[in-house]
């Protein structure tokens, strides 16, 4: 391995197991600061087998240990509600949702983004430096929530990662407007949709298989807040969240915000990449009884996410003293819409207390609610939070309509409290 390659690995995240597996003794020598002279006689037990074990506990690069790992291949992890308390989600707190294996090498200087497709006037390729120099930079705080957030509550159960409440985040994203780049390439008048492709690879390790390639209608892509982002909260995007380049389409299922972004296609029809069809990120057009089978053609693509809120303080399980006043606070968001009101209940929804709610810092950013509560007598309580969007739609107290893949559970969030 020459010096240049070593530099590349050292400046980029690199899955350790892969690294150890691929490392020759010469590579190890480079790491140790010298060539290994007697590679043949080097002790065989130097790399313990345990390093290579498949099913082993681990933490995720750049992520808080408090994240709950749902799945370690592909890596998927969610954030417990109390860790989401900051108004702007820190980098190490944001959930991780992977459909495949993240790219093994991320070289920021060589990374390119190509725009093409039937409805593109031309094919054009940009480096990240090109994007930074050619287009104006913008920063927006944008809410990303996995379409399957809350899936774990549905019965009959829906297959997939069993997210509870933690597949949501709202950090600051910096990049260029998707529409500025699309316009620079040229959009034909027949454009209908955009689709993305990323550099992650398929779980089956078949290099010809695309992991996921979703997108949004051209109108959504042309919104001011749709970004091609290279930065999160002023820092590099965490490797697991799509560094060095990703789409950020606030308010829609986060699967529309492609990670490790390398290509965008401007389509003259609804994009048909993997996970655009079938039951993926789609729900039955008409309401169905729980457990009903629905033919694929009767599904529609999920667009805006529904109104929802999360109590981030106190953490569930709090014990308060008699007459102790405490703050209840959290965030609320409503897909493409704004949140009009948030109410909390301490009596299982019999009565509601109106909270103060902030305005969003920009469109598609979550809002913050808070109120002060004193519990009237000793005993067990649940605090429920219910947000209402500007069109008057509120979160349901019980599970919303069942759907086969368990999407869009926006039932009110609840925490348990005891008063002494």
């Amino acid at each position, binding site marked *: 391995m020459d010096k240049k390659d070593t530099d590349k690995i050292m400046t980029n995240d690199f899955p350790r197991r892969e690294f150890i597996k691929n490392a020759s003794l010469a590579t190890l020598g480079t790491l140790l600061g010298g060539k290994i002279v007697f590679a043949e006689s080097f002790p065989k037990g130097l790399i313990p087998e345990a390093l290579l074990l*498949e099913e082993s506990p681990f933490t995720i690069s750049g992520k808080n240990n408090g994240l709950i790992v749902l799945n370690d291949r592909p890596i998927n992890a969610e954030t417990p509600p109390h860790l989401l308390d900051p108004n702007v989600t820190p980098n190490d707190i944001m959930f991780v949702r992977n459909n495949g294996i993240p790219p093994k090498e991320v070289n920021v200087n060589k990374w390119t983004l190509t725009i093409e497709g039937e409805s593109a006037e031309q094919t054009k390729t940009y480096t990240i430096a090109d994007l930074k120099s050619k287009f104006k930079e913008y920063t927006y705080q944008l809410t990303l929530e996995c379409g399957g957030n809350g899936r774990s509550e549905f019965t009959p*159960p829906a297959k997939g990662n069993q997210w509870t409440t933690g597949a949501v985040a709202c950090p600051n994203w910096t990049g260029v407007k998707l529409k500025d780049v699309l316009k620079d390439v040229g959009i034909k008048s027949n454009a209908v949709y955009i689709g993305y492709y990323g550099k992650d690879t398929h779980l089956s390790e078949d290099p010809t298989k695309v992991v996921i390639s979703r997108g949004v209608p051209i109108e959504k892509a042309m919104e001011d807040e749709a970004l091609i982002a290279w930065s999160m909260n002023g820092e590099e995007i965490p490797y697991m969240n799509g560094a060095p380049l990703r789409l950020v389409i606030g308010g829609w299922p986060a699967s529309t915000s492609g990670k490790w972004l390398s290509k965008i296609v401007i389509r003259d029809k609804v994009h048909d990449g993997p996970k655009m069809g079938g039951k993926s990120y789609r729900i039955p057009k008409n309401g169905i009884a729980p457990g009903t089978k629905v033919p694929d053609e009767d599904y529609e693509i999920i667009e805006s996410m529904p109104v929802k809120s999360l109590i981030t303080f106190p953490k569930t399980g709090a014990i308060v003293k008699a007459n102790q006043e405490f703050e209840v606070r959290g965030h609320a968001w409503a897909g493409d819409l704004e949140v009009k009101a948030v109410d909390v209940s301490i009596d299982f929804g019999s009565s509601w207390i109106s909270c103060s709610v902030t305005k969003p810092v920009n469109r598609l950013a979550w809002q913050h609610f808070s109120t002060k509560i004193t519990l009237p007598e000793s005993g067990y309580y649940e605090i429920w939070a219910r947000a209402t969007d500007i069109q008057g739609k509120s979160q349901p107290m019980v599970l919303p309509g069942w759907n086969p893949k368990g999407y869009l559970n926006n039932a009110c969030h609840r925490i348990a409290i005891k008063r002494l």
Partner: protein
Amino acid sequence: MVKLSDKEKDALKQINSKLTNLIIVLVLFLGGVRLMLYPPTFLENSSQQIVKEEIDPELIEQGIHVASGLIAAEGYELVNQNCGNCHSYKLVTQNRNTKEGWLETIRWMQETQKLWDLGENEDPLLNYLSTNYGPEETGRRKQLVVTEWYQLN
């Protein structure tokens, strides 16, 4: 100065070179040990951390096959043989479904994820999954489960 014969010189050279080799191997070995104990920071940046000890692939504790986390009931070996190649066993253990539901998942994986034909193993595999990872009726809302009560200050 003592004059050495060519033979003696050769012997000394050999000792010298053997000593050097020994020192190099020792230094490399210690370096290797250091690498394991205190990994360089760029390795810390990696996506996956390391287990401290090797897990015995045969070990079963409290009815759980430790290496995979699967319930060690009749047929779990079939899951080990067929399901761990592409994805984590966590994707199995966190899901619940009926026999029919698990079959649907298997068909989906065969159609889109390159899962092979399970042949005569399919039925016992489905029985294992639906018996040990069958659906629980939780109604329209689950009870809240608090793992840790704490004093709020």
